[in-house]
């Protein structure tokens, strides 16, 4: 019976601290519900803070976790470039990397020792194409933040939407640090589109975007609004307030998901994070990530053998708080349901993401297309 160390890298401070806290909540929830030992081996988690995308630091942290802290497993990683910086190390380190969040398809091709339990932007976005057309929107304007995931979202949506018969009349890329979105809304208005597709990273800018959408009267004018679920992350909903009512988003997980597994998870994770308002999707990525790591430890019986560990979880299927999921044997990316959700008001007067439609067993179309 050894102590097996798992190194978790995430943004625990800085502007994305909320996401890091969710990582931690997911990990702690899993360990609270499933114990701290696997086959008699004690699991110990070492957290390392990486406040913002910074590949060099990411690599230094991973290296240190491996060389100094002697971790057998790496987990976490919120941003894609940070994951890309770690992948070249894995082989030499003989350690698998289980990604809790970083959502660019291409990471998986960089190393056979990567497994991902989150989602990709393409995965969560693709169903929106059909949804939009189904709701009678033929002409749409796309507005995405100008960085990797935003560009991914734009491409995935365009492909799906055009395949379903729609037309993207204009594609806007907005700088990440935009504070005032009313000029963008003016563009939307003058483009003559019937709907808007948006992708923004969760955080303060979503608030400004939704506010501007309402304030400039686009909502009253009947313009439809579609976005992947990052935009209505549960922790942002209180700030968005009633302005968010009726927004349609697609995502792999809603805190409100109804299932006994999720109930148990939410209870445990809320306890770990402290305040129920702060809980959102990264926690479930971490929770399932820990599940995968536990399975790996089980399969290797505590010995350090990255390849064997990864092989052991290929095809692994289980019921996650988000619904039924499995690890795709070929891509090592998670196969999961994507849900269409609408922001509605609950009986307690608070808004939440209500799942109204399910797209089962979605793989990552981003990888499939490569």
């Amino acid at each position, binding site marked *: 019976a050894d102590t097996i160390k798992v190194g978790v890298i995430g943004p625990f401070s800085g502007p994305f601290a909320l996401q890091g806290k969710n990582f931690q909540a997911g990990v702690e929830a899993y360990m609270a519900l499933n114990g701290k030992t696997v086959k008699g081996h004690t699991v110990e988690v070492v957290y390392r803070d990486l406040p913002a995308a910074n590949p060099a630091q990411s690599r230094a942290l991973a290296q240190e976790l491996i060389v100094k802290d002697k971790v057998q497993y790496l987990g976490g990683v919120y941003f894609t470039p940070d994951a890309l910086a770690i992948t070249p190390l894995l082989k030499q380190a003989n350690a698998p990397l289980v990604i809790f969040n970083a959502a660019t398809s291409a990471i998986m091709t960089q190393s056979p020792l990567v497994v991902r339990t989150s989602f990709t932007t393409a995965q969560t976005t693709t169903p929106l194409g059909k949804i939009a057309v189904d709701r009678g929107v033929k002409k749409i304007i796309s507005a995405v933040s100008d960085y990797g995931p935003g560009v991914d979202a734009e491409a995935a949506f365009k492909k799906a939407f055009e395949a379903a018969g729609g037309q993207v009349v204009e594609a806007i890329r907005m700088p990440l640090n935009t504070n*005032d979105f009313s000029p963008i809304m003016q563009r939307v208005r003058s483009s003559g589109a019937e709907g808007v597709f948006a992708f923004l990273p969760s955080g303060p800018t979503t608030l400004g975007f939704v506010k501007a959408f309402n304030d400039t009267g686009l909502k009253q004018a009947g313009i439809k609004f579609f976005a992947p679920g990052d935009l209505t992350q549960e922790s942002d909903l209180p700030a968005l307030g009633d302005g968010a009512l009726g927004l349609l988003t697609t995502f792999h997980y809603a805190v409100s998901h109804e299932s006994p597994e999720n109930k148990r998870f939410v209870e445990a994770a809320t306890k770990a994070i402290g305040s129920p308002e702060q809980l959102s999707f990264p926690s479930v990525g971490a929770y399932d990530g820990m599940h995968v790591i536990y399975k790996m430890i089980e399969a290797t019986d505590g010995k350090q053998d990255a390849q064997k560990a990864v092989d052991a979880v290929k095809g692994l299927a289980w019921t996650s708080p988000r619904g039924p999921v499995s690890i795709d044997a070929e891509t090592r990316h998670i196969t999961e349901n994507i849900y269409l959700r609408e922001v509605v008001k609950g009986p307690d007067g608070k808004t939440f993401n209500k799942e109204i439609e399910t797209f089962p067993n979605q793989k990552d179309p981003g990888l499939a297309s490569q």
Partner: protein
Amino acid sequence: MQTILSIGLDAFAYGMALFIICIGLSLTMGLMRVVNLAHGAFAMIAGYIASYAARDLGMGYAIAIALAILGTIVISIPLERLLFRRIYGSPELTQVLMTIGITFCVIGITNYFFGPTLKTIPLPEALAQPVDVGFRTISAHRLFVIACGVVVATGLWFLIEKTAFGIKLRATVDNAAMADALGVRTQVVYAVSFAIAIGLAALGGVVGAEFLPIEPYYALRYMVTFLVVVSVGGAGSIPGAVVACIVLGAIDTTGRYLMPEFGNFFFYAAVIGIVCVFPRGFFGRAQ
């Protein structure tokens, strides 16, 4: 034409919001010669207080603003006594070090107590309505911000250029030892000006929260914006700050309208252009 007017109005409102937040910093930097990078931290503290008062305690918007300004000033007093007073007259970079330190601490503490989520300050009915201004609708809040900006600009200009206090303040900044030797109680002058600057930061933080939402990272996230606006205007100059806010607000807004994907290019290229033409900022005080 309509679009131009419309964009212009947005730009003006955005510029005025920036102005209210930044003018306090412009005073501290231009008049007190303190590069107070913690300015945003004070605006943020005010935002938290206002949010707490209005959302959690259900107080009115006006009361929340007043409480936020008072509360922030009260919090700033011990900081001024213990920390800022040590760096008046220090080299700018020392001030940068100290005020960044303060910012980090404020961020850390806010994060600890209030959590990392966004905080909103609910607007009263009257300000939450969209108002029809003829060619479009605009939220009443934006008009309110514009009005606040105008009041602040004229009030401050009068205080600094026309009153005895203004002269004492400028003298103190110019040469504190000599002002002291002429009987000006420089510490009092500094403390009062500091309080005014903090009060303005607080006001800006609260009324500008619709543009720059309140969250723990606020203080660092917008630091560059504030610094750029203040310097382009010419630190310490009120007309300069007004012009800079409106011009930069307009460039930012039209840039984002015309070609959002090059929004930042536009903005920073314009900044470089302006500084090259006005190497002291629009209304830089002669050194």
